[in-house]
């Protein structure tokens, strides 16, 4: 890996600068044998996880900073089995959501919200923005997805501004502010390496060199600039100060990154049975465990997990056909059951992860990690069987919200609520001060927090 090559890869994504974004085909320099050895060698190191970001905390927060987890699929949910029949907190739980019953007081299932898209595949990629790539030019942040907006807010406070994971392939859920697709890591082993494997000395050296080069450019610009600003009159001064502040902040960010490079990552032992021979359940459990641990150790605060269309779900009991095939069930009972089995599996994986998060006590304040994690499950497609992109299956959990159970969010005229209204609320909860997001018409005020 040459010098320039590294710079191109590692700095491609503006808000994921601290580490190489692993390309779908790439690894970071160790052969499989070494990796396996490393994985096994890590057993029993799980005592007290060291919080990654502690060294950088400028001041100790009263409360644990919030995390954000998004889980999505490309085909929506079979509505009859996903949405409960009745509304309110005492709703009777639906078949697909059964595994989340333990969480029912910290859960909001939202009926009748969407991005007002026509039916058909391909629009689900607007799930986290409400904007299709083709319409992105009308929006200053293009079709930037919610997770990337959160990641930008977190910045270099943590090692990874965001982490995206999937299995085998992705569902095009994450997009940057420039309208560029952010690919998830689709192999659990690569995800492990990315999150928990330390860089080689050579890699560290190359990265440091690049940071040093950028730092010396900043030095030069800053030096030259100090004279300009000294002479500037009141009118120029304000704009120039913006520039000066930018130079200073970027210098700080670079020095944060230098520290990240030298610091070892937290250690995690997952065993090795999730590797090649593992079932998809095992693999997804590993993915969710890694994300939960990354949250726990503050490696990242923003994560997305995707359930792709092409995955072979047939190793789940009761599933014989392809995911896509099951959505075109012609209302045949068998096929619907298979589809619901796949969808229930997705929720089970989520539920297991949330239980794990709930068992983690955060270090700042007396709460569980789940109460400090905004969880969003959903899809940009309503239901694959009808190709409908209306009435998306949307669920919010944790995050310290005053949850609502099952709610119908249509307005008095019977119109669906723009999903961006919910996103605005999630943003505000996360501490991002905004009053609009893409197609929002306001916030989803009913979902409050204390």
């Amino acid at each position, binding site marked *: 890996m040459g010098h320039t090559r590294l710079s*191109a890869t590692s*700095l*491609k*994504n*503006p808000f994921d*600068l601290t580490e190489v974004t692993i390309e779908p085909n790439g690894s970071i320099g160790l052969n499989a044998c070494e990796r396996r050895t490393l994985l096994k060698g890590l057993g029993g190191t799980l005592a007290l996880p060291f919080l990654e970001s502690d060294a950088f905390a400028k001041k100790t927060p009263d409360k644990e900073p919030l995390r954000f987890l998004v889980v999505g699929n*490309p085909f929506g949910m079979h509505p009859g089995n996903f949405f409960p029949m009745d509304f309110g907190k005492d709703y009777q739980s639906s078949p697909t959501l059964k595994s989340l019953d333990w969480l029912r007081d910290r859960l909001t299932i939202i009926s009748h919200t969407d991005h*007002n898209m*026509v039916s*058909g*595949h391909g629009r689900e990629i607007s799930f986290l923005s409400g904007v299709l790539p083709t319409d992105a030019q*009308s*929006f*200053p*942040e*293009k079709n930037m997805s919610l997770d990337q907006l959160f990641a*930008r807010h977190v910045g270099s406070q943590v090692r990874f501004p965001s982490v995206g994971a999937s299995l085998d*392939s*992705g569902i*095009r859920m994450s997009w940057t*502010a*420039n*309208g*560029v697709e952010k690919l998830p890591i689709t192999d659990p082993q690569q995800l492990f390496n990315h999150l928990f494997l330390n860089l080689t000395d050579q890699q560290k050296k190359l990265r440091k060199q690049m940071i040093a*080069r*950028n730092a*010396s*450019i*900043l030095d*030069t*610009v800053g*030096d*030259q*600039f100090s004279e*300009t600003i000294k*002479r*500037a*009159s009141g*009118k*120029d001064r304000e*704009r*120039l100060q*913006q*520039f000066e*502040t*930018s130079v200073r*902040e*970027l210098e700080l960010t670079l020095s944060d990154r230098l520290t990240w490079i030298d610091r070892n990552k937290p250690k995690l032992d997952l065993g090795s049975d999730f590797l090649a021979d593992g079932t998809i359940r095992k693999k997804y459990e590993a993915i969710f465990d890694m994300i939960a641990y990354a949250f726990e150790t503050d490696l990242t605060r923003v994560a997305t997990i995707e359930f*792709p*269309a*092409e995955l072979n779900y047939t190793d789940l009991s009761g599933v014989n056909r392809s995911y896509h095939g099951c959505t*075109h069930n*012609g209302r045949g009972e068998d096929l619907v059951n298979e589809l619901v089995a796949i969808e229930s599996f997705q929720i089970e994986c989520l539920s297991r992860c949330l239980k794990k998060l709930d068992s983690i006590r955060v270090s700042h304040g007396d709460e569980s990690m789940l109460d400090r994690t905004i969880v969003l499950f959903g899809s940009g497609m309503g239901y694959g069987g009808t190709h409908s992109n209306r009435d998306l299956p949307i669920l919010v959990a944790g995050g310290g919200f005053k949850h609502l159970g099952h709610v119908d969010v249509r307005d008095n005229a019977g119109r669906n609520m*723009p999903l961006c209204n919910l996103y605005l609320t999630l943003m505000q909860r996360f501490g991002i001060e*905004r*009053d*609009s997001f893409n197609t*929002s*018409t*306001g916030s989803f005020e009913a979902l409050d927090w204390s």
Partner: protein
Amino acid sequence: MHAFLPKYESHHLMSVRNRIDHLFARLAVFFATVLAFAIAITSQPKTAIGEESPLHAHCGDCHAGNDAEGDFSLGQIGSDADNGDYHALSRSLERITAGEMPPPTSSVLSTSEKAAIVHFLKQRLRSHPDQINRDYRLPPRRLNNREFENSVRDALMIEDVGTHQPTDNLIGDSRFAGFDTHGQTLGFSNFHLEQYIESLRSIMDATILSGEQRPSERYEVQPTQIFSAHTSQNINRPERRGRPTGFDFLDPKQLAYFAPFKTVPATGWYKISIRCTALDRGYYPATETGIHDADPIKLVIQLGNRHREFELPDEEVMVINLQEWLAEGTRLRLRYPTDGLTLRGNGNFKFQNAIAGEYIKKHDPNLYKRVADAIVTKPGRRVLRPESWHHWVDYWRGPRPRILGATIEGPFYDSWPPRRHTALLPELESGKTVEDLIRPIATRAWRRTVHDGELDHIVDLIEANEEKLGKTEAFKEGIVALLASPDFLLTATEKSNANERFASKFSLFLHSTLPDTRLIQQANTNQLSTFESVHEEVRRRIRSANIQPFLQEFPYGWLNLSEINFMSPDPDRYRFYHRKRLSEDMCNEVLTFFNHVVEQDLPITEFLEADYSFINADLANIYEVSDIKQDSHMRRYHFHNGRRGGLLGMGAFLTLTADSLGTSPIHRATFVMENLMGIHPTPPPADVKIEEPDIRAARTMKDVLRLHQSEQNCATCHRNIDPFGWAFENFDSVGAWRDTYENQTETPTKKHNRHDGPRIDASSTFADGTDYADINAFRRIISTPENQERFARCFITKLLTYANGEVPSDYLEIDTILKRAKDHDYRISATIAAVIDSRLFREE
């Protein structure tokens, strides 16, 4: 559409779904501020103008004392002792000049009285301390992404920033009132700076090559080595490849690539030769494919972000030969550009295959029968009828380009190091000092003379890096630093002199890039110090220079075209709009018209008064025009019914002011007021409470608004707003004519909109009593000399906003520009020149 909303929110995109109530709330106090004349007030302060003066006589009844109407009292325009409020003065002038004040129901001004008041108010402005002490200097602003890209290109003297999309990482620019030049909105952060550095590095890497020269190779591409790239996330499905006879483009959404040459292996010159032809144009009816028979079949070669488009001859082999400087990593892709092949099903290409079945059914019934008979339905599977698209995939003969093969050779170099390298850094190996070498680059990039010592830090950087990185790489670091500096990234700081600032601004205004040598020289020798010389230069540049950036960006910003799909028409109800990408045609109509006005140097009033526009067959479909050639080319067309022509009848304006399902006269009125008439409703204070009227009984928009007007709060404003919008009520969400409203209770049918709702009444009455019955009459009103002048003032303000990066507030100086433009019959070149020659532009 947020731009129609008050400024304080316009940096965020706001949804407009519930805008009616919203706007009512916001606009309520505007007219309460400026217009309302209802309640007589007895206490009157002493004003500079006597009790018997016309100003007092006509305005004093309402605008006096603490309870003055519309929060405006005559006291605000001053007394003998003070000069009053500048803003209030200029607002009063605008309203009175326009004839909106005083309202005819309260008072009528004679011509001489009006002249006296106008004279008096201008006098007040002229002697106002704000005017006398006005500092015309503008603070520097960040270059926007367009200007950055063009300026880097010109500073480095290359054809473009590179084919490897080196500026894709830049953070998008937010717009203010449609423009991407607004200083305050552009802002600067560490994110910006970091992205600039990354982008600059990447540009430098593809411009200055170090190390050994890379050997050239030849790549032969057989048609079977051409693949159609995945467009979905389904990467398990094999990609379609060409047959030995050629690679055919089917789905226009799919990009093709050459397997032996997916990406450029090393930066350098490449010779690309592609053998191709066009097949089966017009084989299927155009009504089915959505591709006009008269449109040539085209092929786009995408070299990263550099696109080359070619028209292919029918059934005849054409060899395309390109010679291009390509950056390492550039992806070479090919595309069939058409807005057709999306009319079937949900628009996905696969559904088009059914057209083949229909064609065969009609023309080759035997074959049809054979295919239909061969269909076997497996048990448990869906029954697929013969007309289903599935059976006809192999029979597709839609219009399409075919590639027969290609040869690529490269990289080549004109010399080593390549000429672009030596042009930038001549004699790198000679005895010149580091400073000598970078000074010319700095002078170009910083748009000014570089003073002694200013380059010291950069020289230090280069010298410090030389040992570690080598000479060439060290220079690259230096150039990155030079371009990452505020002297480049910000428009003229105080280190440039007035001439340099003028040349730089002139160039940014028309060309969105660094000034060329001619311009610098003209500015330095004071050759552009008079209106005449500026006018001559503007005309020369319109004729012979590249003013494309202005021709594209100014109308885009002025008319908010970037927002046309922000609340796009409902895709179920307005299928044609989406399927044939009408928004692009609509924007093109605006740009073509604007280009025409500039090219012919027509009066700017042509925008409002023309009885023609530039349309193609797809727009003709929306405009219900049949006597036009059936193709995609924009042609001048005269409308004979007086309903269209110029901006007011254009789909772009009518669509971008509409919501998904309905239209709103208020949005259209606000658009016309803000962007054509220069009337800016100010937002009401936050504590204004609007009672929401009961509108359940309303059947039409007129009913809704009438009910709103029963609220006094609403009524005071909407008497003045609504007349600017009612005239367009006959145009639906995509700008098509309608006599009745759509029947909203019916679910939208996919075939056609139902227009059997209530009949439309597009009449209205302005506050001054002028009334109109329909769009034709409205267009006559908008063409009166008063309205022409108002439009010209608005247009000038927009030009200045684009050029200055902030909204101008100098009423008198705009008056001067306006007068000059008027002296030249509002010809656009003179209007632009008058703006450039103004103190507001010259900043002095």
